[in-house]
């Protein structure tokens, strides 16, 4: 479901900075349906990959063989990301807060964390430079606190300062695609608000899974369930082994 909803967010011909897991699946689903001309770029330097197998890491050799271009990482970050060529970036993380700030660094104090997470990788740069980002993450009060323990990737507002005030080029996280609903960044406040519910989910279920007083859009949308085509592609073609369809889908960076 998350993969199908994420796929629908992508427009044909867009340049997407993609990671492994659900984002990769979503991109391939989009390519197989409405966006055949999507251009996938991996932080590892592969551009226009056509993997013959489901890549298990963003450095998978299958992303290189038959790709359109392979470049060094200085080029990935300077000539593509900082250059402003990336239209969509996918992000995920252990914690996502009210303003879409993401923490993939530590749970607890940085100096002596209770849980040490992998860190930024390229997430900070994607959050700063991609023209827009989509956060893909399952809802839970622990995963969606009022405030993250550490801001690895800036969202719509950090310590009260907007992206414009911070001088961040990209629009930041416009949507959170979760397992229950879609949240959207509210114009002006930049606060993540409930925008659309998945079939069979009620607003209260979503509120109960978020660590802050979640507000709702005036008119709540209902997300269409995955079509038969989407389901067949996902289950039979794109991820027959179910490698990612049950994953947390935040394997964004290597």
């Amino acid at each position: 479901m998350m993969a199908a909803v994420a796929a629908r967010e992508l427009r044909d011909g867009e340049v997407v900075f993609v990671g492994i897991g659900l984002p990769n699946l979503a991109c391939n689903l989009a390519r197989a349906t409405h966006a055949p001309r999507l251009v996938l770029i991996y932080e590892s330097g592969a551009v226009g990959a056509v993997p013959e197998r489901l890549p298990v890491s963003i450095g998978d050799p299958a992303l290189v063989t038959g790709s359109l271009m392979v470049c060094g990482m200085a080029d990935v970050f300077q000539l593509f990301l900082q250059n402003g060529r990336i239209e969509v970036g996918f992000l995920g993380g252990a914690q996502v807060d009210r303003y879409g700030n993401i923490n993939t660094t530590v749970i607890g104090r940085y100096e002596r964390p209770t849980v040490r997470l992998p860190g930024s990788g390229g997430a900070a740069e994607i959050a700063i430079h991609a023209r827009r980002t989509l956060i893909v993450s399952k809802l839970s009060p622990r995963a969606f606190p009022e405030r993250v323990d550490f801001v690895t990737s800036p969202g719509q507002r950090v310590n009260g300062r907007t992206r414009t005030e911070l001088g961040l080029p990209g629009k930041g996280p416009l949507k959170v695609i979760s397992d229950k609903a879609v949240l959207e960044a509210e114009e002006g406040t930049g606060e993540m608000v409930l925008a659309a519910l998945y079939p069979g989910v009620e607003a209260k279920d979503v509120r109960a899974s978020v660590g802050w007083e979640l507000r709702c859009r005036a008119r709540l949308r209902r997300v269409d369930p995955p079509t038969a085509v989407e389901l067949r592609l996902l289950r039979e073609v794109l991820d027959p082994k179910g490698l990612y369809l049950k994953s947390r889908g935040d394997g964004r960076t290597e």
Partner: protein
Amino acid sequence: MTENVSKVLSMHDAIARFVHDGDTVVIEGFTHLICFAAGHEIIRQRRRDLTLARLTPDLIYDQLIAAGCARKLVFSWAGNPGVGSLHAFRRAVEGKAAPLEIEEYSHFGMVARFAAGAARLPFWPLRDYAGTDLPHANARIKTVACPYTGEALATVPALNPDVTIVHAQRADAAGNTQMWGLIGVQREAAFAATHVIVVVEEIVAESVIRSDPNRTAIPAMIVDAVVLEPWGAHPSYAQGFYDRDNDFYVAWEGISRDPATLERYLADFVYGVPDRAAYLAKLPGAQGRLAAKQRYSSRVNYGF
């Protein structure tokens, strides 16, 4: 997966659509892959007030200057390689012809300007210019203090052309471009530009590009037009396709020294022909004389 839409245009249409009066135009290529065909089309379409930038203006910018297309020149070495002067350039700068504004750097400075432009940074730091008179001649060469060591480093401002024209050996119809041999600053100049025209010796199937992705220098996503123009770099050269026409570079000394002779050259070989094919038809024997011999690379395996 690809932008498998064709961006193939004729040289006429590519220049007409992407090069406008007053633009900052870059035709790069260090000795190698200098797109004379594009320069000639710009002259034919009588563009005016252009700011022309490249490390070595070479004969192509000498011709654009002589044809009155240029308002300003941004450069780092203005000579005829191994021969002598660019006389149209010299006449303008020495006050013997219509004036030409100049903005001068060293090669490293120009390279750094393109690098900053390609990375979309406002400046680039380099260890350079101390003791030289270049900063006195060009106020845009400044310094910055290192936040760690405190030492002063030179800086140059980013260069972001309105359009960069890159000549290359091959590309697919969408603009995924591969080049080999001397590559100069062609990649940086392309990534720094608002619009990119790629001119190639041959348009190949996407599968050829995909067979060697590390060879791809410019991705389709930054390319606006792909022009197929065999021999489009003559009298410059294309490694693996044709040699440099050194005789013409020597001849340019005589042609450019006298404004009337230069005018006649432009009348015959630029204004007097509709396109590159007609230009080549006026050079009988050149292709036979300059065609490249075969020296193929060893292959590599991309399998897994």
